């Protein structure tokens, strides 16, 4: 019973940690735009960077995907999907922005 209680404590702790980090990262992103101090492109880079960090935080603490063997299948699936998404999104953007430039 003792181990079960500490197990539960650890599970709750993961969600609390994830929630705290997510709130902080979200707040930072909104604050960077609300009280904008950098140039537009730098601010955009900061916002997108914070979003990527938050993505990792969510997968780690809310979806429990980590580097342990137990979630290796999921990790491969996610990384493969990330590859597909990166190819399709960057391909779309490169081709269409290039096309736009040529038609100007």
């Amino acid at each position, binding site marked *: 019973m003792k*181990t*079960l209680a500490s*197990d*539960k404590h650890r*599970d*709750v702790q993961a*969600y609390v940690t*994830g*929630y705290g980090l*997510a*709130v902080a990262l*979200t707040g930072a*992103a*909104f604050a960077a*735009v*609300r009280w*904008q101090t950098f140039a*537009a492109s730098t*601010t*955009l880079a900061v*916002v*997108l960077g*914070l*979003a990527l960090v*938050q*993505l990792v935080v*969510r*997968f780690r603490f*809310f*979806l*429990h*995907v*980590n580097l*342990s*063997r*137990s*979630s290796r*299948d*999921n*990790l491969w*699936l*996610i990384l*493969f*999907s990330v590859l*597909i*998404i990166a190819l*399709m*999104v960057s391909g*779309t*953007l490169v081709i*269409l*922005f290039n096309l736009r430039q040529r038609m100007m």
Partner: protein
Amino acid sequence: MSSGEVIPAGLDVAAANEPGKAKASGDILGFWVFLMSDAVIFALLFATYGVMLSRTAGGPTPAATYKMAPAFIETLLLLTSSFTFGMASVAMKHGASRRQMLGWMAVTLLLGAAFLGLELHDFATMFGAGAFPTRSGYLSAFFALVPLHGLHVLAGGLWMVVMMIQLMTFGLDARVKVNIQRLGLFWHFLDIVWIAIFSVVYLQGLIR
């Protein structure tokens, strides 16, 4: 509850019953495949939005259309609902009372409903300002992307109601457990899509 065994990602609630475990992990992995294909759909709508962003056809621009405060509140609502569903999963895993699980799920459902209400109000405000989907390529792309996420949240909410009824009717049997686990993955996934929406759509549009 020993660690170091092969279990699917997501909170490992089936750890106690060994026989059903292999099947349960296969069921969950299958749902992950669905989630990732859904992620591809969203990613391509994001790409379309990126291409269309500057095509406002003389109509409302992103900076004039978006409001920061509602977007921030919507973000917090959805984030908190993700956390409360996490608490429901913990309650399920550690054999808390059914009432406690139902309570956390009800809170999650309410937060999801509040999010949808606020989002609909946003869209109504946009319509009032002449920002229709048919106004420009930019607005078409916006209304293809953001309301699709809203529809997912609506579907998740309906699914939540169904699971609460099943939980009350059948109790916590293996099937209900797996379905609640899937719903949890779906709900957290929607919140992850929303991170991309508030960063790429709302915050990018509001940067001066």
